[in-house]
């Protein structure tokens, strides 16, 4: 058990060194990543000015900006660029063999690798994000009690697990379809909307069936839910039920992914490579 853990920690360390080799790329991408955020803030400023209201769907102007910033933190944990296409490519090219010939499990290996990616990303972007949050500090009311902080960190950690195994499931579909890029694009576009990255899902409250369905799907736990926990808009029963659903999805996706992977290996013919 300890040997196994040491092995994956070593992978984490090596991946971290590799990731930090691209610091300039990280900083440039981070700067560019602020552009959509800034334009979205300004768009919402213009919406509030045009609406002549102080609240839209329960969000004041400040709370809306706070929400959009917090969604960035959620996505920092849950987004997994290139994971599914990478898995599908390894399956298609036959490179999956390298995992099968070594005493290493592909999914745990990739989880360690992604963990390193996230640590490196958070470390290299901490400064610009800290600056951004500092500039917008007036829009935040920090959670008033320790339990909210705990729930927030738990929701972020679970969003990482959901994000990883959700994408990994799509990648593992590559055992049967070989090419999953188009499927990934379709899911990403839908996810962009239904996970609450564009706006808080409360704006859809006039369609209660839609919001209730979205509560039960995994998408909103990758962006909307952690942000709402921080803003203390999910409290008491809502918070506990939300966390339980998130935990359910995290566990369910781990089980599903491992089952699909094991099933896929039976199909695998190790072409190429």
């Amino acid at each position, binding site marked *: 058990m300890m040997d196994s853990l040491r092995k994956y920690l070593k992978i984490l360390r090596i991946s971290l060194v590799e990731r930090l080799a*691209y610091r*300039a*790329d990280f900083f*440039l*991408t981070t700067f*560019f*990543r602020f*552009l*959509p955020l*800034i*334009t979205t803030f*300004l*768009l919402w*400023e*213009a*919406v*509030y*000015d*045009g*609406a002549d*209201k102080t609240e*839209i*769907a329960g969000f004041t102007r400040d709370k809306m900006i706070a929400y959009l910033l917090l969604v960035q933190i959620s996505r920092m944990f849950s987004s997994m660029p*290139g994971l599914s296409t990478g898995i599908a490519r390894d399956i298609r090219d036959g490179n999956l063999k390298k995992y099968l010939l070594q005493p290493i499990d592909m999914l745990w290996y990739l989880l360690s690798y992604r963990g390193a990616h996230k640590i490196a990303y958070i470390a290299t972007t901490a400064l610009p994000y800290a600056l951004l949050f500092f500039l917008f500090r007036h829009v935040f009311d920090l959670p008033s009690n320790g339990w909210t902080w705990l729930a927030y960190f738990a929701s972020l950690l679970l969003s990482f697990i959901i994000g990883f195994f959700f994408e990994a499931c799509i990648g593992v579909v590559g055992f049967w379809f070989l*090419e999953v890029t*188009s499927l990934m*694009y*379709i899911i990403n*576009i*839908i996810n*962009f*909307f239904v996970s609450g990255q*564009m*706006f808080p899902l409360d*704006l*859809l409250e*006039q369609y209660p069936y839609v919001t209730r369905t979205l509560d039960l799907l995994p998408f909103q736990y990758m962006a909307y839910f952690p942000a709402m926990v921080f803003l203390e808009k999910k409290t008491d029963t809502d918070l506990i039920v939300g966390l339980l659903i998130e935990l359910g999805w995290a566990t369910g996706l781990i089980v599903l992914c491992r089952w699909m992977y094991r099933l896929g290996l039976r199909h695998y013919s190790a072409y190429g490579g």
Partner: protein
Amino acid sequence: MLRYVNLWLSLAKFSLLGELAFRGNFLVKIFVELLWLGILLLFNFTIFEQTTKIADWNIHEFLFFIGCYFAMGGLIETLFMENCNQFADLVRTGDLDFFLLKPIDEQFLVSCRHIDWSCAPNVLLGFGVMGYAYWAGGWGFAPFATIAFCVLFASGAVLAYGFMLLLTSASVWLMRNQSLFEMWWLFTTLMRYPREIFDGNKWASPAGWFFSFVVPIMLVTNVPARVMVKTVEPWLAGFALTAALIVAWVSRRVFRMALQRYRSASS
């Protein structure tokens, strides 16, 4: 010049044959673009359920703007995106040698050799949205504005191409080869909304001015869209046309500088 037109037509035909060899993939890609347009429109309508105006743009004017943005994005992706995306890879692998050895302008060959036909319907969809918004807005037929729109839309495309070429060239020094697509998507966020949203905010106003007159990416869609559904001051239209020429010239210089840095290391 005619030689290049003929060559481009041949490349376009060759690209189309390539796409049609994988019809299923072609259709899925079109479906993805349709879905993206659907999400954009849904976002637009959800926002306009809360307000009647966004920075002085009403729902029909804003819809026209979105159509213009979508058509422009589609045009750039059809003609240049995939080509530019592969540039850093060509440098890394040394395959750029084969391009440099051909008796054709390198910029043309690098940036125009492949036409991504699966993005071409976006141009039509964008024009469809613009047409619907124009009809729903109740504006009458305006021949002068239509001609001005066509000219300014073309100049916007030149401007966007210039910026893409600059970003492509910069990728040789700054980025990993897979970053360009994401960089372009992030950068073009600036042309996704009316530039008036930058006005009235003491921090954003200078940024709005900067991205309109120093790095004029915002003018790519703002000027053509405004000329149809609002008014454009003649000096701004003139500035957009001049900026397109300057950016095209500068991007060519920078691209050639990037080529000079090429050492054919891997070939």
